[in-house]
């Protein structure tokens, strides 16, 4: 398969941008929209999801030859649910405030299509090390996007980022930004910006390739 040629470094980096689960693949949007009312919530949700994704990917990848194809989805869900339970109980014990503000969305990580998608598309077909790196990259991309989204909404809707006041008191908070409508507006604008950036990068890549081809011919 062509996958073997992908370097380990690329396996990690692709999750940050080229295959960013939120901005490029539009996966797991339910928690993305629902809990990102602040940067802390976004980061908390991102890290919880990353933990589940990394652990589940590792286990699934180790067991990939033992799982019969017919029951693979059910097996994935059992593994994922185990780690979600661990996260849920740990957060309740150690970070009760964060756990309360994320609410039902922690148990709902079980059905996050990003996690199931990575098991199906990657961990069940690759060795444990590659799967681990892939999960780390995807998780980092997910967590970073949620943190930025939460940060923007918190900044405009509450004047703060991570609880630190950034905008002066004269700035009237935009209440809509911490309402669900603000999540859709911000995510939409972020998706637009991501498309703009990747389109520009593509154009530059095409130009570079053309220049390189020209150089070769002249040499």
């Amino acid at each position, binding site marked *: 398969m062509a996958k073997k040629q992908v370097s380990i470094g690329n396996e990690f980096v692709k999750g940050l941008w080229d295959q960013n689960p939120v901005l490029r693949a539009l996966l797991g949007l339910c928690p993305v929209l629902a809990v990102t009312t602040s940067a802390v919530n976004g980061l908390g949700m991102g890290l919880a999801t990353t933990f589940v994704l990394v652990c589940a990917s590792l286990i699934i990848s180790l067991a990939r030859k033992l799982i019969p194809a017919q029951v693979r989805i059910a097996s994935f869900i059992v593994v994922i649910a185990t780690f979600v339970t661990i996260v849920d109980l740990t957060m309740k014990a150690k970070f009760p405030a964060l756990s309360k503000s994320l609410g039902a969305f922690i148990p709902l990580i079980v059905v996050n299509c990003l996690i199931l998608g990575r098991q199906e598309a990657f961990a069940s077909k690759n060795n444990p090390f590659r799967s681990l790196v892939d999960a780390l990259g995807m998780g980092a991309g997910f967590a970073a996007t949620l943190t930025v989204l939460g940060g923007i909404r918190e900044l405009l809707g509450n004047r703060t980022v991570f609880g630190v006041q950034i905008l002066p008191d004269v700035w*009237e908070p*935009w*209440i*809509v*930004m911490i*309402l669900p*409508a603000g999540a859709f*507006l911000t995510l*939409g604008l972020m998706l*637009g910006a991501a498309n703009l950036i990747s389109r520009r990068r593509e154009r530059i890549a095409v130009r570079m390739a053309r220049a390189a081809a020209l150089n070769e011919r002249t040499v």
Partner: protein
Amino acid sequence: MATESSKTSVLGGVDEGHLDLVTSPHSHFGWSTGRIMWTVSAALVPCVATAVWFFGFGVLATIAGAILGAAGTEWLVGRLNRRAETIPDGSAILTGLLLGLVVPPGFSPFMAFIGGVVAVGIGKIAFGGLGDNIFNPALVGRAFLQASFPAQMTDWSHATSRVDAISQATPLGLYKFGDPSQFAGDIATQKLLLGEVGGCIGATSSTAILIGAAILLITRIAHWQIMASMILGGLVFGGIFHVSGIGPSPLFHVLAGGFLFGAVFMATDYVTSPNTPVGMWIYGGGIALLTILIRLFGGLPEGVMYAILLMNATVPLINRHTRPALFGAK
């Protein structure tokens, strides 16, 4: 290209080096976008004038803020996209003007500016610019302001008015949250007609709005079907509820709040209203029904904005189902 060429040539032909294909039948209205937009702006002058008369010159700062936000966004995005200049067609300025007229007097010009940016940036340009927007941009801006600054958007006390009585709750607010028996004596139909009542900057005087409506109808810019269906719908649906003992008189429904302003200036927007006469009647009647349902059974005293936005969303459906049969088709 299609919109550009339809402006310059009606019959089709070779135009500026590219073949311009236009299918028949056509009868060009003969007016450019710019001329329409500036005429609508002129039709709003009576509203602005009565607003200054009743609420003082402060309202001009709010309106200016909204226009600056709307036109500034249009200019900046046009610049970044290297598009042709779209400011002279007046559509962004008109959006800003409309937005500035549907916020409370004494509303902060900076917030109005934000509303203008959202109206044009998210309400129009994000959908592809003039002609491609699904929702009325000025109302998108207002909905954003309503959700962002709910306290300021319902604060009617800041008006530096020359008539003390009007720096108080709006007639609809009094009806909904005050003592309904008290309002009957307080707010007479005459006051609603002249504009001596609290309310949004441009929506206070029904007479000024009706002058604007006359201008739009005489120049045949606005379709009379939309205005007529909305006002008739308000009278009919308001009347049905009034007769069954729910709500104020139908005339109060039509004259109070933003009903007339919405019917004349917001619902008649070309881009976000149906193309067919039958569709226009459905559209206007739907807005009237939704408005009255929101007013009577919703949590808000006023529902014209959400009613128009909701009906905007149904316009493609209305257009599809009211399309006249092709000539010769079964």
